[in-house]
């Protein structure tokens, strides 16, 4: 029989293990702080050289040394909001079908496809958007709309295919699985006792969803939407391939069918040609702005989640 190990041995072992875990956790904090500081210091040439005009300028002409980020900032916000707006009804439809109507067997394959959709690399969405969807949408959606209500500036022509609206559409497809899977999670947490209460009053399934499940889940759905928004804001590859990378939108051409440039597509398509310090600094400042937008969205998400949990506990 082996001699028993002393409790001091265990204490020492515990202490070592604990310090390893603490270092791993500190690494996350350290990484974030280092990244943030690096972005700020990297942006300095732009912050000092371009000044506040960087945020309000509408021209980006490295040849003349003019760097204005406003169109890119607006495009990032507009594509993401539009994408989420397109995704919400689809994701809600999926979630309500899944939780209230789908037979067990269908649930299994639906989950599989939602997960698969979420796992598609964004470059595939990009290539599909560029070569398949762009020509289709140009002929069958954009041109008819331009022909009929093109006099309204935001629906004006010409139809390019690759555009702000195409980017939003493809982003929506990428965001749907995120919002849908979270919404499924939230709606299925609706207490059975509440649903039965509504059913016992003679409510149909839809009435039960409308009066019980959706009100119960509303804050959680909002949180899911925020998370989807965060995903949309940061998406780069697909956007760069299909948005057109032109500074046209919104000032030169306010149409949603016009090509545009988002923060991410700007950085992705120009980082390799940025040579001067101020050019590099401007691109880094763009990423700093994106990080701040993302952080704000994330903070909103956390706030909503916190409120949701509090509401759920009161239940």
């Amino acid at each position, binding site marked *: 029989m082996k001699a028993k190990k002393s409790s001091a041995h265990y204490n020492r072992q515990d202490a070592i293990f604990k310090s390893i875990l603490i270092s791993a956790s500190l690494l996350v904090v350290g990484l974030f702080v280092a990244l943030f500081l690096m972005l700020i210091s990297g942006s300095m040439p732009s912050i000092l050289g371009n000044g506040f005009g960087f945020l309000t300028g509408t021209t980006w002409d490295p040849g003349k040394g003019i760097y204005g980020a406003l169109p890119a900032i607006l495009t990032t916000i507009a594509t993401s909001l539009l994408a989420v707006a397109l995704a919400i009804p689809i994701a809600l439809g999926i979630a309500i079908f899944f939780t209230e109507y789908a*037979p*067990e067997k269908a649930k299994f394959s639906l989950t599989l496809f939602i997960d698969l959709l979420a796992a598609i690399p964004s470059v595939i969405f990009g290539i599909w958007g560029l070569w398949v969807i762009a020509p289709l949408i140009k002929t069958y959606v954009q041109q008819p709309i331009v022909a009929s209500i093109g006099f309204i500036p935001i629906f004006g022509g010409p139809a390019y295919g690759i555009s702000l609206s195409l980017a939003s559409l493809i982003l929506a497809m990428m965001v749907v699985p995120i919002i849908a899977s979270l919404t499924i999670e939230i709606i299925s947490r609706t*207490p059975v*006792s*509440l649903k*039965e*209460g*509504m*059913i*016992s*009053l*003679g*409510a*149909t399934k839809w*009435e039960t969803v409308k*009066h*019980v499940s959706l*009100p*119960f889940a509303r804050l959680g759905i909002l949180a899911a939407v925020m998370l989807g928004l965060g995903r949309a804001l940061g998406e780069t590859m697909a956007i760069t391939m299909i948005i057109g990378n032109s500074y046209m939108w919104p000032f030169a051409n306010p149409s949603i069918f016009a090509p545009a440039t988002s923060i991410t597509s700007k950085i992705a398509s120009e980082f390799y040609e940025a040579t001067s310090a101020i050019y590099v600094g401007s691109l880094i400042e763009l990423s700093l702005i994106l990080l701040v937008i993302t952080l704000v969205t994330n903070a909103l998400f956390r706030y909503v989640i916190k409120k949701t949990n509090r509401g759920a506990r*009161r*239940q």
Partner: protein
Amino acid sequence: MTNDSVKLDILKLDAWFGDKQALKGISLRIKPKTVTAVIGPSGCGKSTFIRCINRMHELTPGNKVAGTILLDGADIYNDMDSMDVRRKVGMVFQKPNPFPNMSIADNVVAGLKLIDAADKKELEEMAKENLKAVGLWKEVENDLKKSGASLSGGQQQRLCIARALAMRPEIILMDEPTSALDPASTAKIEELVKALKTETTVIIITHNVQQAARISDMTAFFYLGELIEYDETRSIFESPKSPLTERYITGRFG
């Protein structure tokens, strides 16, 4: 076969959870404007029994029901739509379940809002009337806009009874409505149940045999999915015919 003295006629009712049979050939008749207590040990099929009467049992996929239930002569499984049945057969659950996203007043009329487009004033009247019927009006008249979840447990349960009553149901099913409540709230609900039978027919499950004795006219004793004995409450408690019934009501098992 119908006559005025039968509200609910249950014939050879069987029910299953998947492959497991939970009710075996239950037949009984319930008279209008009476209180019927359903008693028996846990797992004896009491809840399944009343959930067949408002067609809630079938909501879970895999559950099945066979046999006949006639409500005023109409077969609830063949002649009526399930939603229709539930409007005529209200239910009060074990755990009070007011809708937390609705105000107290909206909770009362939640079911009414589904069927007709009564105007706001009418709905307010209905809310008031039914809150009065359950003795809650005085307690909440200044808080009608507050959430239904803000009330105490006993008040919530009376709110749920008001919600069921507002539908003017032919029958109200109650699934151990006082088991989550304190004695004072329980006493109020018991008084309410006794008063309800002037208007409607009540079928109440209870785990508390004294409660059954206090409030019911008829008592049905269930055991392992079978109806062992069904008789006037007094007979059940004074001279039970089955030794099983006697052992249960005297607290020797259950």
